[in-house]
């Protein structure tokens, strides 16, 4: 303990040593120069280069993102437009179909009415013709009957019988 104290007081711990100072300076300067050559230059330039590389990558990524967003926006717009277009087309189609249907049904109704009326007319004509034919027939028959009556002369019973039988005839013929 005593000796260590003496050494401390004698200043061994703090004593200057020119040799060591000299060697430290020389060593440090040489190390500095060597490291500058072999290490700091390449490492710092590599770091700078990488920093630049990373920065440019980030810039490029941002640019790509912006582009992608622009494209997405455009796509959305296109899609919205296409949707609207489709809606419009569907609406128009519906309207057209409605109109068409209305038209067709109208036409069909008109046609049907026309047909019905023409059928009615025809029926009327046929009826009239039938009536004409009937009228002629009846007149002929009446004339023939009258002829027969007149021929068989004035026997009332006979006449009556003849007329009856004639009527019978007509009714059976008609049926």
């Amino acid at each position, binding site marked *: 303990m005593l000796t260590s104290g003496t050494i401390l007081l004698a200043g061994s*711990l703090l004593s200057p040593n020119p*040799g*060591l100072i000299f*060697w430290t300076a020389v060593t440090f300067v040489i190390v500095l120069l060597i490291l500058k050559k072999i290490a700091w230059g390449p490492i710092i330039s590599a770091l700078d280069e990488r920093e630049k590389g990373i920065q440019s990558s980030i810039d490029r990524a941002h640019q790509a993102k912006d582009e992608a967003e622009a494209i997405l926006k455009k796509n959305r717009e296109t899609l919205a437009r296409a949707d609207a277009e489709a809606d419009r087309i569907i609406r128009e189609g519906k309207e057209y179909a409605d109109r068409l249907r209305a038209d067709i049904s109208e036409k069909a109704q008109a046609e049907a009415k026309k047909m019905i009326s023409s059928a009615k007319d025809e029926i009327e004509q046929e009826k009239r013709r039938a009536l004409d034919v009937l009228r002629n027939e009846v007149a002929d028959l009446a004339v023939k009957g009258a002829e027969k009556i007149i021929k068989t002369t004035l026997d009332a019973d006979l006449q009556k019988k003849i007329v009856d039988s004639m009527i019978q005839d007509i009714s059976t013929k008609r049926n």
Partner: protein
Amino acid sequence: MKRVKATKANAIIKVLAIIVPLLLNINGLALATTQEAPAVSPVAAAAIEPHAAAEAPEEAHEAAAGGEEKAGDVIMHHILDNNVLAFEPFGEIELPKIVIGGFDISITKHVVMLWTVSAIVIGLFALAGGTFKNMTSRQAPKGLANALEALVQFIRDDVAKANIGKGYEKYLDFLLTAFFFILVCNLLGLVPYGSTATGNINVTLTLATFTFFITQAAALKAHGIKGYLAHLTGGTHPALWIIMIPIEFIGLFTKPVALTIRLFANMTAGHIVILSLIFISFILKSYIVAVVMSVPFSIFIYLLELFVAFLQAFIFTMLSALFIGLASAHEGHDEHEAGAAHH
């Protein structure tokens, strides 16, 4: 259950592994310290050669005392510089003494450590530097290059760029070298047979002197000679110059001195604490103290030292950058004072 038993057995084996060598060695080490006495004294004599004559009776006292008194000597022997590289059980290497023009520039233990540090740092960066040279910006770094790059980037961005600002690139070489040099110096003191060169005030003084010169050069460059001299007056009234100029002049030197002492004291203190904790058990001659106190506490301090090694390397670099930044800054004088008072 089996697992628990196994872990228990493991724990017991671990404890035995710690205790048994201690029990076996306790006598041997005690012997070693007493035997070291004659070995130490010639070294001590060599270290304090100029005072050899005055120290002679002291030495005799030392040799006679033996035992407990040796603890302090051994600690100081570990911390101080000397001309012997000791590889304890295998022997030691005497280092050459070189004297040129009256200056003693002998290769001492710390010089060897400095060279070892240089070799390690240069080796590491030679390995990593090759990777960087062949690397394109598209490749991610890995392995050693990545580890070193993280530190380099930290010094560049958080130390140099943050404190110096514009034009930090010029000082980056110095700051990076100082950081790695000091870091490896600090760490080398924590490995067996190593010693902390940064625990020697001459080394830290030299490193701080580099910072001093670079700081002054930066100040001169930024303000010109006129601005530099005006800075020394502190921007006060000429009547106060007689007080201000000496204060500012001293202020120039306090910063590097603070750097010197901070690094030196931090590195020395940790080692003294570890060694003292270990020597407590030798002084008390008790292995219980060794197991309960010396070993756990010195492991704790060792881990703390590991942290301090990084911290002090960082602080030295950080403050160097700060001083350079303050010297080259164009702001008023108040900033300067604040920066100096900051640490």
